């Protein structure tokens, strides 16, 4: 972490906000899965190939919701760790000012204990921050990988929709569109978050 880490807790909070938006979209994906299941049931035999796909959409939605929620929490914790470190850095810089101002004062040595304790706390917070940042990065990559299946699901859904006859084709294509657009939006938030994580790591 560099000295200008006042930006760090803001960036981490922005990541949390990105994931909060992703969670909301993932919930919509869950609704899409329920809708798909209902349409497939109504279409009967003609949509028999579509039904297993609804389970995959449902699973994708559920994994995305829980994973986004988890990443949101990680990012919020990261923001807190960065804010705590900022406060500790602030205390250390004030102690340093005192050491400069009062180096020859009678009781200057009485500061050592507090100074060392604050330094130790700073080291601990840096380690915690780095660990949380690594974990956040890993979870974002995992979710990104998971979302790759969304494109395949959308394609397969369109193929199955074409078999379902004209009555249900529109509704099933609509399901495919919804899966694709929700996944793209979530991917966009993941990508933004990954870029922000990268900027934190390079900071």
């Amino acid at each position, binding site marked *: 972490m560099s000295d200008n880490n006042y930006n760090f807790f803001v960036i981490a909070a922005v990541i949390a906000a990105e994931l909060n938006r992703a969670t909301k979209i993932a919930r919509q994906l869950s609704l899409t899965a329920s809708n798909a299941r209902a349409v497939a049931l109504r279409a009967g035999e003609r949509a028999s190939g579509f039904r297993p796909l609804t389970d995959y959409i449902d699973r994708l939605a559920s994994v995305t919701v829980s994973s986004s929620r988890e990443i949101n929490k990680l990012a919020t914790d990261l923001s807190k760790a960065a804010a705590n470190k900022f406060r500790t850095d602030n205390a250390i810089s004030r102690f340093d000012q005192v050491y400069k101002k009062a180096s020859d004062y009678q009781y200057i040595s009485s500061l050592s*204990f507090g100074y060392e*304790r604050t330094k130790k706390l700073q080291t601990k917070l840096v380690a915690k921050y780095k660990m949380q940042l690594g974990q956040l990065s890993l979870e974002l990559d995992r979710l990104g990988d998971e979302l790759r299946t969304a494109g395949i699901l959308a394609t397969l859904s369109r193929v199955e929709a074409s078999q379902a006859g004209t009555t249900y084709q529109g509704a099933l294509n609509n399901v495919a569109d919804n899966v694709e657009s929700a996944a793209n939006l979530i991917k966009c938030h993941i990508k933004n978050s990954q870029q922000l994580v990268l900027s934190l790591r390079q900071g």
Partner: protein
Amino acid sequence: MPYKKLATASIKSTTGIIMQTYKIFENSSHKWYVIGRDPDKPESIIDTNQYLVVTKNNSLLMDPGGIELFAGMLATIIKLIPVEQISHIFASHQDPDIISSLGLWDQALPDATLHSPWIWEGFIRHFGMENIQYDPIPDKGSDLKLDHVNLQFFPAHYLHSSGNFNVYDPEAKILMSGDIGAAIEAVDSPMFVDNFDAHIPKMKMFHQRWMPSNEAKNDWVNRARALDIEMMCPQHGRIFKGDDVKRFLDWFEALPVGILQK
């Protein structure tokens, strides 16, 4: 009266000049110091007086000030006592110029106790307090014993804050009066009132605007008159001593407050 500007005042140091320090009382059991007139203070920040009572093994730091003051205060204090001797902190109320440095003191003095009005606990903790212990002062006030010295937290509610205390030392006959008696003036002003009438214009607007209640004010004046006060020490401006304390009480009693001057 044995108050004197200490040799520590205005010493040139590597990065500037430390805050002015006066010992305003000393006997065999304890000492009172006032620390203020911060030369490194940013211009737009109001100047504040901080007070320190030092007994044999303990110390009470009163209204330690804002974040901007912390380094100057700490540097000044370690000229007088080891930092760990500050076992108690007092915040007369919740304002930032009183106690926004709390998060930093919390790192420097993890074993200290903060005495402050009970109604402000949930608010003051927003300044950051993970180590220091909060001792809520009840509305009627309470006592604090520092080694063999008894100090009293004297109620001053609505003067100006809705939960507000002064600190009275019956042995030294000193009343640390918080915002009561405060004056707005230059950072290089003298530490003591030398001409009461000339001082009035510096206090009038402050008291009329910040003090909201004539009833609370008059109740405080009546209670303060029952105390034996040799020195009245506000958080801004100058210290009143001797007859100027009585002059202040008379002036304050006659002053209508809760007024927005146009």
